[in-house]
């Protein structure tokens, strides 16, 4: 006789078995009733887009993702549960926080997973400025730690120059 299945999230016996075909792959999840309910799986109206996001990937991978779903965004505190409820995200950083779950869904939702449209110049400039600045700052720190003071002075000057150029640009 088959062994009764255990819930994938806790050790209760599983009574809810969900099979879903996503990207031509079969995914199975076994849950006990209370876990199923807390995940919204028993809710007939609960099959929102966000539901699909929580269960993609291989079976084992799927499980870690179900567990991941309890995580929240470190920047804004938004939870996966909230996302499931509303289908919306909390802040721009949620795209990274829930990135692994989102990326496969985005491709299914859209006509690709890369942005090909307009690029806002200012946002990009700001980003490259920040990237450059943080590289220089870590270089500076490293140089100081290694007591390479000549190098450190050079990095310091470059940082000052970068900031000055940025400021001049802003006031222009």
């Amino acid at each position, binding site marked *: 006789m088959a062994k009764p299945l255990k819930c994938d999230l806790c050790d209760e016996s599983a009574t809810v078995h969900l099979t879903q075909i996503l990207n031509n792959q079969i995914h199975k999840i076994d849950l006990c009733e209370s876990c199923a309910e807390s995940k919204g799986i028993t809710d007939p109206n609960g099959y929102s887009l966000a539901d699909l996001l929580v269960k993609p990937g291989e079976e084992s991978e799927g499980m870690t993702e179900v567990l991941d779903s309890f995580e929240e965004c470190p920047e804004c505190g938004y939870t996966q549960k909230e996302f499931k409820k509303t289908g919306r*995200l909390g*802040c721009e950083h949620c795209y990274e926080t829930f990135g692994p779950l989102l990326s496969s869904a985005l491709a299914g939702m859209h006509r690709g997973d890369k*942005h090909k449209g307009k690029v806002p110049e200012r946002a990009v400039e700001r980003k490259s400025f920040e990237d450059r600045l943080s590289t220089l700052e870590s270089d500076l720190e490293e140089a100081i730690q290694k007591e390479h003071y000549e190098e450190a002075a050079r990095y310091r000057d470059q940082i000052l120059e970068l900031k000055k150029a940025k400021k001049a640009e802003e006031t222009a």
Partner: protein
Amino acid sequence: MLIESIFDGKSEMTEGSAKKCPVVLMTRIRLARNLSETPFPGWAKLPQRTQVLETCLPAVASLNQMKRGITAEVEELSDLEKQILVERHLISRELSGAPEKAGVVISKDQSVSVMINEEDHLRIQVIKSGYRFKQAWNSANVVDSTLEDELDYAFSSRIGFLTACPTNVGTGMRASAMMHLPALVISNQMEKVVRAVNQLGIAVRGLFGEGSDASGSIFQISNQTTLGESEEEIIKRLSSVLKTIIDQEMNAREKILEKDPNKLFDKIGRAYGILQNSHLLSSSECMNLASLVRFGVDLEMFSEETRNTVDRMFIECQPGHIQHLAGKSIDTNERDAFRSEYLRKQFENVERPVFTMDNSEKREDSSEADSSKGEKE
């Protein structure tokens, strides 16, 4: 006072007569944008929402395009004002029900509106009458770039503009066309069209967006995907679908005229009779009658001026507008009476329709020319 400036000013929706075309009533481009390092409006706390509004409202209001326009916080607006703005497609239902610290700026000609703290921090919208995606996109693009000089947008080089809902990420652009498709409705082909169009990643909705019905045979057709294609590519793809729908509608019109012209003439003639003589009219009946008269204009049964009257009625027969015209808040029955009285006046001097097959044949030629003209966009 706000209402007066909206009514007194000429609006793209009701007056853009120069660029009228038989099937496409208006085109719209909407861009979703968010500020960097601030939670999206639905998750932001009150102080953050307040800050977004205080940053964005003056930045938007000082745009050249917004000169002598209207700037308002949603909390300052009366329910009737909000309803009228929704009926004019200048704000969304979501914004009109926004909890607090939401705002809107509307250009003087009512073709540009920017909503603040809706689903995203900024929703930039440009409306153009007729079939003019290119102009609408150019104008939205300029507004967007100008705002970007002032505001820091949330943007990822990999997945584009970051939006509250992942369905908008990428370009953040929704391009839509309001299409008048009476012949496809009369010949029961709309369901087939909707199904085919949906498969191409294009959505079909009623006049007032999601969940609204399609009274007046008016449908909103828009792109569903925003990531993986440039704005121009999205518009191009949507346009080719619109072109096919226009062809289908024109074919359906020809077929109806060929097979059973009397049935159609009867519908249009009756619509004219009701608009001139009724004493109770609901808004949805009014939409359907106006739709038939507009169909009649396309068939050259009515003068071209009548098209303007009809297009205005599509907006002015809505409950909020009727209450404003009545000058007070009135219940549904009174509204229906007032609406019919208003329409009797509007159609009093519209000349009787001319029903001849000659006209319809002439129309077929001109409509073909019109539809191909419309596609060149």
